[in-house]
């Protein structure tokens, strides 16, 4: 076990970061917000922390807190115009947001280091802290899933006019989902910057956007297992594909197409749904149902 950990430690750490960003992406989608802004939020979080720590010698916890606040503030402001859009238009608007963030990072060179970015960031993150951050995120989303906010998010995704007809202030809940997505994205961006020594704008560009989206598409957009399964595939795949060397991208593409075709809900979601169907076959009494709910159905 330990030797496994040591040989794969960087892989595990990047897996944990990918899971966190995956949850940021998933939270928006599961509430019916077609956002791909996660890469932008993680850029804001990463730069806020990196600048505070390297330029102003701010203590790390404070820097992360500021990143979190920046993520929430920016996503809240962005949620206002976003509430007027739907579907593909939200995707385009959030794509534009990511592009604007990157353009600003390049433009304010004196502050952000321009294309070179920021280096010399202390590496204070390790597997333990990253795991803790992922576990806290999971706890919050698990709580959401088992309570009122989760019910509302699911309703928004499936038919927001039904939610409104039941008294749900839908704009506020769309904003809540987007702000939580912004918060998680910014925090994991900050943690990432405290792990990789240096950050530059390209880290948060198109590639990052596709990566966090892929985690959710592969894993699933509704269950807690989704981003874990998605990030796991993304982490293991390059290892398996090592002999293929430069054909790795092709393998990624093929796997993505296979999953979308045969497991359209994503590997993690399909697994949870399958388990739920198995549990449903047990005799239907209130107590049996409640047990089932606590184990898996609460996702």
């Amino acid at each position, binding site marked *: 076990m330990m030797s496994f950990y040591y040989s794969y430690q960087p892989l595990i750490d990047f897996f944990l970061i990918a899971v966190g960003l995956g949850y940021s992406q998933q939270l928006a989608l599961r509430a019916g917000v077609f956002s791909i802004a996660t890469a932008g939020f993680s850029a804001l979080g990463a730069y806020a922390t990196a600048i505070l720590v390297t330029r102003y010698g701010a203590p790390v916890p404070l820097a992360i807190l500021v990143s979190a606040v920046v993520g929430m503030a920016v996503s809240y402001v962005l949620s206002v115009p976003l509430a007027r859009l739907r579907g593909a238009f939200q995707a385009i608007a959030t794509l534009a947001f990511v592009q604007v963030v990157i353009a600003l990072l390049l433009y304010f060179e004196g502050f952000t280091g321009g294309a070179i970015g920021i280096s010399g960031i202390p590496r204070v993150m390790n597997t333990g802290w990253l795991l803790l951050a992922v576990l806290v995120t999971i706890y919050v989303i698990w709580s959401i899933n088992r309570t009122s906010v989760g019910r509302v998010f699911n309703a928004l995704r499936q038919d927001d006019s039904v939610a409104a007809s*039941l008294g749900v202030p839908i704009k506020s809940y769309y904003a809540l989902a987007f702000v939580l997505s912004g918060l998680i994205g910014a925090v994991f961006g900050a943690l990432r910057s405290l792990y990789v020594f240096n950050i530059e704008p390209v880290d948060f560009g198109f590639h990052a956007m596709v990566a966090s989206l892929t985690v959710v598409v592969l894993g699933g957009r509704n269950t807690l297992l989704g981003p874990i399964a998605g990030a796991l595939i993304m982490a293991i795949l390059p290892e398996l594909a090592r002999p293929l060397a430069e054909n790795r991208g092709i393998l990624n593409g093929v796997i993505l197409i296979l999953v979308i075709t045969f497991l359209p809900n994503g590997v993690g979601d399909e697994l949870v749904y399958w388990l739920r169907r198995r549990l449903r076959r047990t005799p239907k009494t209130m107590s049996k149902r409640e047990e089932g709910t606590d184990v898996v159905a609460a996702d």
Partner: protein
Amino acid sequence: MSSLRIEGACKYFGGLKAVDGINMTVPAGRITGLIGPNGAGKSTVVNMISGVYSLTKGEVYLDDQQLTRLHVDEVARRGIARTFQNIRLLPEESVLDNVVIGYFRKQHSGVMSSLMGLPAALAETRRLREQAWELLGRFGIQAYADYEAGSLPYGHQRRVEIARSIAAEPLVVMLDEPVAGMNEVESAEMAEIFEDLARSGMGLLLIEHNVTFVSRLCNQVYVLDSGRMIAEGPPDAVTRDPKVIEAYIGGKADAA
């Protein structure tokens, strides 16, 4: 005892006067009928009251509070519930969870308590699931509690939707063709539930094609034709009204 009123209500879609200057009262503890041939404007009335459509003219009141310009969710929070003529359930959700969401208005635990998974929020969810389970029993669909709502037969989906609409004990519920597609036995079961709800003090607006069904349940019936209220009164008087007979025979002959 609250009553819902609309006064001089008009809804025009361009040149089409879908609803044209109607008055109607839905008192508490009663089942009020709204009938009329297809395209008469009945669903439009529901959408106007619930805030889906803005009124071209006229006002909506709940007692002395004005509802006219409120948003859909605000109207719902004032205690006006509805069902949809084309059933709208959350298709991926279980039957039970489709009803649980109906309690939204009655929830006490806040957003933070939900995010932190505090005991109060979890206990509330448990309690609402139990209440929803009871309600499914009342509608005779407990056996389907765990099924995906979208997979149920049409008649059962209607029951789920009605259960959802009354879960939070609204002051007034507007039922848009609630027994469409149900057989005699099923409609009679629904009728019993509607009467129970009225006895408990709820005001019901029952929109139906089936004149016999409405006549049996309502003290007061309104008849809409091409956006105008052509008759109102007790069911036996209204169904004998020549204008009503003409509207039904002259329009589509789908009155039972």
